[in-house]
């Protein structure tokens, strides 16, 4: 071996040296490094899991938002329909009320017109009557002479019922 240039002692020392180096590296360097890598992997997995959860949560939120929007839209549509329906009912009720009032006003106006016409007619008749009586009175005053008046008076007294009732 010496002819080959190999020193057995040196070789042994190197082997021992290598073994020692291997043991030291394995124990103090490789193990923590592997542990660190494993931790990193675990952290990465956790991150991915959290990211998945966040994504899932976001999707759920979006779905809920969409559902909420749909529900809101439906509620609004229903409310609008209800309002339209109520407005239509109110409008028709108002129209009916207005028609009724107009009809009543018409009847009242007709009655008032009739009453006023009758009142006017009565007033005209009264005035005609008063005028007629006045004309007759004046005519009698003018046309009857003293003799005629005496004749009339005598006629009245002659035809007066005897024991006439005295009125207040």
């Amino acid at each position: 071996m010496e002819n080959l240039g190999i020193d057995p002692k040196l070789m042994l020392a190197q082997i021992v040296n290598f073994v020692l180096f291997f043991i030291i590296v394995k124990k103090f360097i490789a193990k923590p490094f592997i542990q660190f890598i494993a931790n990193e992997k675990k952290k990465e997995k956790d991150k991915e899991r959290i990211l998945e959860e966040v994504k899932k949560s976001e999707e759920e939120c979006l779905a809920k938002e969409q559902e909420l929007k749909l529900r809101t839209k439906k509620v609004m549509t229903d409310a609008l329909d209800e309002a339209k329906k109520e407005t239509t009912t109110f409008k028709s009720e108002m129209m009916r009320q207005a028609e009724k009032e107009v009809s009543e006003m018409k009847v009242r106006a007709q009655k008032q017109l009739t009453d006023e016409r009758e009142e006017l007619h009565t007033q005209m008749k009264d005035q005609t009557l008063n005028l007629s009586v006045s004309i007759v009175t004046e005519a009698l005053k003018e046309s009857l002479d003293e003799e005629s008046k005496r004749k009339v008076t005598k006629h009245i007294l002659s035809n007066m019922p005897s024991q006439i009732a005295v009125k207040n």
Partner: protein
Amino acid sequence: MSMKIHGYIKENLKKRLIEDLEKEKGKIVVFSALSLSDEEKELLYAKIPRLKGAYIEFITDRNLIAGVIIKIGSKVIDLSLKGQLNNLAQLAYETNR
């Protein structure tokens, strides 16, 4: 605001009113368009005997046209032409209603 009247004034007014009513009670007034002749007066007495011998005040009112109105106290007998016309007008007026 009401005015207060003393008791003695009230009494006097009441007494005066009663006296006036007593005076009016027996008073007889005959209104006619022309002054009544004796014949007409006799006719009147024949129809209303209580007038005969009573004190009667005769008053002429040309507005009556013809006929007479006899007032005995507060009672009135309207036999005038004007009264008849008024009655006719009243009747026609009531018929209108």
